[in-house]
């Protein structure tokens, strides 16, 4: 058989030795550093992508946070404005009602005073009337001595005239 005849033991021997030698040398000086570098790079790319994704998510989160804060601020502003308006209204209302009350109080005071004054005036008047009555009575008493009938008429007229209102 030509195939077996052509088979060279020496070539086989050298091929095995050389190939195994090549395998070990390449493994140490080529494949390990190359595969290591490729893997390291792939890992770093993966990491970078992951961290970029993370940064993006963080950014999104921050943005939504900002929006939330903004919305909150807006809501707060609105409530503050509303409160201020309410306070203002309340203050006006309070002022109004207080002023009303004050006015009523003043009016009541005035009325009371007027009443008092009036009572004082009445009292004064009564006193004057009493004095006048006494004077009249004096005069009457003086005249009674003259005319008894006239005396009665006079008292009656006087009393009618001093009718209290």
């Amino acid at each position: 058989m030509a195939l077996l005849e052509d088979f060279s033991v020496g070539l086989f021997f050298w091929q095995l030795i050389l190939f195994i030698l090549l395998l070990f040398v390449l493994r140490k000086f080529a494949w390990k550093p190359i595969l290591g570098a490729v893997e390291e790079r792939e890992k770093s790319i993966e990491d970078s992508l992951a961290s970029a994704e993370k940064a993006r998510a963080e950014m999104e989160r921050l943005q939504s946070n900002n929006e939330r804060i903004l919305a909150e601020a807006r809501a707060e502003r609105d409530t503050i404005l509303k409160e201020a308006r309410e306070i203002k209204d309340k203050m006006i209302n309070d002022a109004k009602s207080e002023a009303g009350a004050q006015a009523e109080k003043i009016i009541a005071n005035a009325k009371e005073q007027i009443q008092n004054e009036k009572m004082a005036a009445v009292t004064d008047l009564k006193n004057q009337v009493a004095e006048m009555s006494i004077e009249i009575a004096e005069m009457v008493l003086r005249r009674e001595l003259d005319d008894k009938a006239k005396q009665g008429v006079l008292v009656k007229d006087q009393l009618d005239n001093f009718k209290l209102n």
Partner: protein
Amino acid sequence: MQIKRFGFLAFLLAFSFSWAANASNQHGDEHGHHEEQGEKSIKEQIAEVKEHHLKDSHSFHLWGDHASGTSVEFPLPVILWDEGELHFFMSSAFHHSENQTVESKGSYFRLYHSKIYKTDAEGTIHYDEEHHATNAKPIDFSITKTVFSTILVGLLLLWLFGSVAKKYRKDLVPRGIAKFMEPLVILVRDDIAKPNIGEKDYKRFMPYLLTVFFFIWMANMIGQTPLGINITGNIAVTLGLALITFFITQFSGRKDYWAHIFWMPGVPYVMRLVLMPIEILGMFVKPFSLMIRLYANILAGHVVIMSIIGLIFIFGAWGAKGAFFGLTFFLSIIELLVAFLQAYIFTMLSALYFGSAVEVHDEHH
């Protein structure tokens, strides 16, 4: 995905075998006119060149002229082991004496039809009835042309990937030559190792897969140069490679692998007995097919290319010469593809075998 890949493989196998068949035809033809003396016709010259090229040689022939019989070549060291003695001399020594013998430590050796025989001082060759030499042959450990070329390929790979590795030392970004080689390394890793062996185990097979891929590819490619080197077309070379694949497979075989060979789980007991010898045979057939496929493909490619180059010289008409030149050109391009494909297939199948060895079946069949 898997089916597609197997379809592709089947196509490649069919392709491979058609080439191998082609090669044996060519081989049959050339045995017809093998004559060693007298005026040689151009056909005989071509056949001789062809045969000479396909066989290993003890010197590195660069170019020569048949008419004047001159050739430019450089000698290579001859190392012989004979009856417990080591003989060492340069191959140029064969041309120094009249009868082309070399005397070393009291023994005479003669180079005859690119093989070294032990002879007497006159260099007599004894023949059997079929005109084959019957002289004793020493074991030939010479640094032949193929061994020399293998060293060359090894050095080339070392230089190439050594400088690629150096590029990564400075920066993880591939630069220069690394930019070109990295996709190929990734190809072996991501398309050959990972899918066939599995994410968990692929790493420890990577050095072998990468080495065998680039070695075969480079050896195939250097065989396409006009230097006339034929490394992977030697069955001794492919046997060496296939044997390493075989041993790595067996040594990394897990329990499941051996169970599938000797006692196939999930089939009836009778079938297990039938399957056992088939599986055991399969253990050896797999690397055997690796050996034959690579050898036959590369040898066939060389035979075809050289034959049609020969046809350029045989045909007188310029049209025919041009046509065969075109054909040679076309087939050379196909050969470049084959050089890559064969490296790919060898590596792919090796990875497949490693994968079957380390596979762990957790499901029940």
